[in-house]
């Protein structure tokens, strides 16, 4: 692949991101602008922005790579990523918007009337965010290494620098525009090359090198436990992701939060057709990528392999641009929501504190990324979902739907989930990816129920601690707003 073309693609995406960010600077002035774009983002914009933010390195590169390796077993990943939004719609979207809180710690503090719950939630949110940024940076490192031959650290450092610049410059108002633009860029960058490859293959009638149904490596098929555990993680992890939740505060009201989620489901369903097609094409026409351990780079290498020439270069550049859009958008979304949390808890919620927190939120995971090696991208993001599902999800779901939740129950549940799931992740990593037993490699199926059980049990034991404001808060969460006659 032509390294100059890839570099140009990367620079183009970064500059576009920065330009939209600086444009946003002119119109965002108050602290409220910085945090949640003044809550005036219409559903289509917001849905594109959520799609842009959500479709990370795991979706853009990882899903196709995993499909190349393990076929139909991997098809459950995009299904879970999408169905997670269904759960978010059913249980969280409208009440969370109505809560009037900016971040998850704000929500738990308001709901449970406890500053300690707020601090524990903040810690968990920061842990989730950092864990989720690391695979994005690994993806950037991989992309730069494969497409330009530059050392890995260039990719991850470049992403962190661009993200810091945009977030510090414009906050979330500009981030909304950046994210919405990046969803459409990502879709184009995956769809156009795949369609071209299909046309070329149909035109020259070349026969597949390998059948679709046979795994290119000797990877064992996943059992029922792995499938169930993965689905638990993805279904319940999505509704606790801090960067996704913060987006719901930018809807004008609860009803539009639901409409936004419906549009997001449509956008995700369309998007995931293309990594699936890429993965299928890879199994038939480029199985050697799996044998050489380059599965995650499949999407990047496919156009060059199957088309070649100038057309191949141009299409590769498009894919590289899309990949960087994925790393930049997810990382900046996470950095915005993390810096919201960090700045409110450490720096008193000022704009200057927000900027300082943004740099902190981006630089720490960069250190992690340098120290660790990239696993399969979709797999490592799957583990972050498991962690979120075992920590934030129980508190959020029970807080919205169950009057009996207490601060003690919430803290006990979050700590249990964090210890069990975090412990399983560490143990699994120490034992090495392939050799860890299934219950350690995919812990969600037992850590999520355990966290729920502890939250409920401790809440029942500390019944006296149910806050007196519970009636007021519950009606705020669920009572519909007056229909807005003006606007919209």
């Amino acid at each position, binding site marked *: 692949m032509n390294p100059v073309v890839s570099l140009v693609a990367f620079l183009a995406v970064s500059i576009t991101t920065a330009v939209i960010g600086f444009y946003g600077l002119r119109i965002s002035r108050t602290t409220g602008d910085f945090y949640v774009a003044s809550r005036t983002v219409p559903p289509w914009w917001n849905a594109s922005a959520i799609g842009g933010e959500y479709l990370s390195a795991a979706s853009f590169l990882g899903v196709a790579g995993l499909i190349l390796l393990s076929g139909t077993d991997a098809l459950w990943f995009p299904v879970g990523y999408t*169905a997670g939004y269904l759960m978010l719609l059913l249980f969280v979207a409208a009440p969370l918007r109505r809560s009037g809180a900016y971040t998850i710690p704000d929500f738990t503090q308001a709901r449970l009337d406890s500053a300690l719950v707020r601090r524990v939630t903040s810690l968990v949110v920061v842990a989730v965010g950092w864990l989720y940024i690391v695979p994005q940076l690994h993806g950037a490192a991989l992309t730069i290494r494969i497409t330009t031959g530059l050392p890995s650290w260039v990719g991850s450092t470049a992403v962190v620098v661009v993200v810091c610049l945009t977030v510090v410059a414009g906050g979330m108002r500009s981030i909304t525009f950046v994210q919405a633009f990046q969803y459409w860029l990502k879709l184009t960058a995956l769809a156009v090359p795949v369609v071209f490859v299909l046309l070329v293959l149909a035109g020259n009638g070349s026969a597949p090198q390998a059948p679709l149904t046979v795994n290119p490596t000797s990877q064992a098929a996943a059992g029922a436990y792995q499938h169930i555990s993965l689905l638990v993680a993805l279904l319940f992890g999505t509704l606790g992701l801090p960067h996704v939740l913060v987006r719901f505060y930018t809807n*004008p009201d609860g009803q539009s939060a639901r409409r936004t989620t419906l549009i997001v489901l449509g956008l995700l369903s369309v998007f995931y057709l293309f990594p699936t097609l890429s993965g299928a094409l890879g199994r038939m026409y480029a199985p050697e990528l799996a044998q050489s351990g380059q599965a995650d780079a499949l999407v990047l290498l496919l156009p060059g392999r199957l088309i070649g020439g100038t057309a191949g270069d141009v299409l590769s550049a498009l894919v590289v641009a899309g990949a960087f859009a994925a790393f930049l958008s997810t990382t900046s979304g996470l950095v915005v929501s993390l810096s919201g949390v960090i700045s409110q808890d450490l720096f008193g919620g000022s704009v200057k504190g927000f900027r300082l927190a943004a740099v902190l939120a981006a630089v720490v995971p960069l250190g992690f990324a340098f120290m660790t090696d990239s696993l399969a991208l979709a797999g490592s993001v799957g583990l972050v979902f498991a962690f979120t599902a075992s920590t934030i999800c129980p508190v959020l779901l029970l807080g919205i739907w169950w009057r009996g939740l207490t601060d003690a129950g919430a803290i006990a549940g979050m700590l249990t989930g964090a210890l069990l799931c975090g412990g399983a992740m560490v143990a699994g990593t120490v034992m090495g990816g392939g050799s860890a037993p299934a219950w350690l490699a995919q812990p969600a199926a037992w850590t999520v129920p355990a966290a729920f059980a502890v939250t409920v049990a401790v809440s029942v034991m500390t019944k006296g601690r149910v806050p007196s404001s519970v*009636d007021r808060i519950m009606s705020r969460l*669920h009572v519909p707003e007056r229909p807005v006659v003006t606007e919209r």
Partner: protein
Amino acid sequence: MTRVRVTAPRQSAPLAPGRVTSPREIAEDSDSGRLFVRSLIRSQLRLALVVACGFLVILAVFALILVYGPGVAETRIAGVPLDWLALGVGVYPVIGLSAWLYNRAAARNEARYRDLVEDK
């Protein structure tokens, strides 16, 4: 677009515009108001659980048919194996349809609540 100015973003943010005569006050002020809110929450929770369980059951049936269905492994439609089509394409309309049905029903629950409160 209107802009909402936020001066102290500690933990609570301004409510949506148009929420001046808040139904919340009605909800807090009287026993019957509280009862309406409780029944609204219960009906929304029931709806969410029904849709979630329905979707998961469909997904489980899907998975079981793909694994145990006689002849499924060999079935191909236009050259593509059935399990690839089902998981790669077929699940998504089911997700979208569940979401659409839920949105309609949830809005209906809220409209019913509004009618109750306004009748009072």
